[in-house]
């Protein structure tokens, strides 16, 4: 079958999110294999200049309105559901992100179409889109197939490579009037609250020593700091560490933290919940140390050590020290 995929682009503060490219790349690959079109849908305000980065798409639908300047669920649902109803694409790709989590299920309900979440893989067969979802904290996979009509797939960040979707090109541009009626909306974006700046930017660090629950105490974070120093990197963490106020939120890797792509990601005592993994799975080299041999982190790591981090950290530091001297 000839496929038709809509990719809902995401942008924040004037920048397209990686998620957009990850979805575009996969859609492009499927379209190239099977024939068909990839349409990027870009809703926002004064975002036309982002169009040129969306070269992986065949077509771009641009919907601009002041009400769409920043994401608020209702106006976005309104314009996108109208568009999908009218154009009836085979598959709509939405990110499993802060924006997509509000959008996809609502669209599916309004349009009464199937929707599959936590998608980690996607393929096309003769008459079906085949979606693989990662559920139950990464312990179970479900493979589902949708045949007729429109379906929505909510894609896990990091499931596909962003590079594949970062292509220059000139998709055919179609501008659609939003036709929004502000009086219909019972919500609006008010303002941003930005995290306190001044801390290091872990997305720029070439090496990250990342700690999870296994670090046990706030004091022990100093051990990770020492190791990071020996490696010439910085310390990041999973969510529980930030929730404990042991590290600032700027150090958090994962769904509600940063997505990082360091050259080395050393995961210490991190079990590897899907929310964390999506923020680091694209690191060049992943080494995980955990006492639990069944920890999901070992399925994304390149190298795994089943051991106590408090044994490995000092030994590693010592070894690194020897090399320097």
């Amino acid at each position, binding site marked *: 079958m000839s496929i038709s995929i809509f990719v809902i682009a995401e942008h924040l503060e004037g920048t397209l999110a990686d998620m957009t490219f990850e979805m575009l790349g996969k859609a492009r690959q499927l379209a190239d294999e099977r024939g068909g079109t990839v349409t990027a849908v870009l809703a926002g305000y004064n975002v036309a200049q982002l169009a040129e980065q969306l070269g992986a798409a065949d077509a771009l639908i641009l919907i601009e309105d002041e009400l769409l300047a920043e994401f608020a669920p209702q106006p976005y649902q309104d314009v996108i559901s109208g568009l999908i109803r009218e154009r009836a694409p085979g598959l709509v790709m939405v990110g499993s992100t802060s924006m997509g989590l509000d959008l996809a299920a609502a669209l599916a309900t309004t349009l009464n179409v199937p929707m*599959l979440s936590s998608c980690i893989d996607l393929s096309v067969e003769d008459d079906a889109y085949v979606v693989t979802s990662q559920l139950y904290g990464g312990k179970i996979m479900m493979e589902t197939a949708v045949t007729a009509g429109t379906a929505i797939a909510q894609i896990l960040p990091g499931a596909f490579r962003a590079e594949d979707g970062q292509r220059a090109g000139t998709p055919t541009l179609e501008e659609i009037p939003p036709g929004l009626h502000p009086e219909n909306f019972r919500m609006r974006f008010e303002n941003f609250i930005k995290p306190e700046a001044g801390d290091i930017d872990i997305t720029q660090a070439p*090496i990250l020593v990342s700690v999870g629950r296994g670090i046990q105490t706030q004091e022990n974070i100093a051990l990770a700091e020492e190791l990071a120093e020996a*490696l010439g990197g910085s310390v990041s963490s999973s969510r529980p560490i930030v929730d404990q106020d042991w590290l600032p939120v700027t150090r958090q890797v994962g769904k509600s933290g940063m997505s990082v792509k360091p050259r080395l990601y050393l995961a210490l005592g991190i079990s590897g919940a899907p929310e964390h993994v999506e923020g680091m799975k694209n690191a060049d080299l992943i080494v995980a140390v955990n006492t639990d041999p069944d920890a999901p982190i070992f399925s994304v790591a390149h190298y795994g050590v089943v051991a106590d981090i408090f044994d490995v950290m000092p030994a590693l530091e010592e070894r690194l020290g020897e090399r320097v001297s």
Partner: protein
Amino acid sequence: MNILVILKQVPDLVEELEINDDGTDLDRTWMRYIPSEYDEHALEQAILLKEEHGGTVTALCLRIGEVDDTLFTAAARGADRLVRIEGDFEGISSRDAAAVYADHIRRGNYDLVLTGVQAHDDLNGPVGARLAAQLEIPYVGVVSGMHLDPETGVIHLHKEYPGGLLTVIRTELPAVVGIQSAVKPPRYVPIAKIRQASKSAEIGEETAEPQSLTPGYTVRRVFKPEGGGRAEIIDGAPEDIAARLVSIFSEHGLVR
């Protein structure tokens, strides 16, 4: 201010999950259910709102596994009303569950519905978003903070984005909110209080027939990810492990 909190029972991941014989679903015979972690945050947030502004908190549970303990725990935390909906709900999708919740909410008088932003078994997406779309009221998810103005019936929701960035979305009530985390993590409830609640609190019982619309997709295969993954496991004494790691780092040009 009447707040409804939806508590969903999900399989306890501590247990080994079994797949049924034809490989299309989990085997739920021996499954142990616990309340979804995000829903516990939703409940905590509801209690915090109640403590600040007054009102009532209703905790709602579909009968999936043993739910009475979950409801009594909610009462011990401070929920005023407990509702259990009886029916054949094991393995229910978030889409079908949303219809059951919507039915209950239409008959009730709620200003605010709080639910976890997602659950680990939501193949059909977050129930909150589906519920709000059915009720045609606002929904905002991934929320980790809020400020309620009961006078005007407006709530300012702090929605999380990566890297600690938040946006504030002003929403009129009634609304559904998907909680990422409560302002304060859920507090511990001692067993004595749960037992006390189980003696004093009453569970209102309702029944519902889950409507099972054709889902529009077919489940082909349910399987476990390949064990061990792709990590190459390094064994040995800490010194040996350290030596091996450093040589790997060096191969990748990470250390001199």
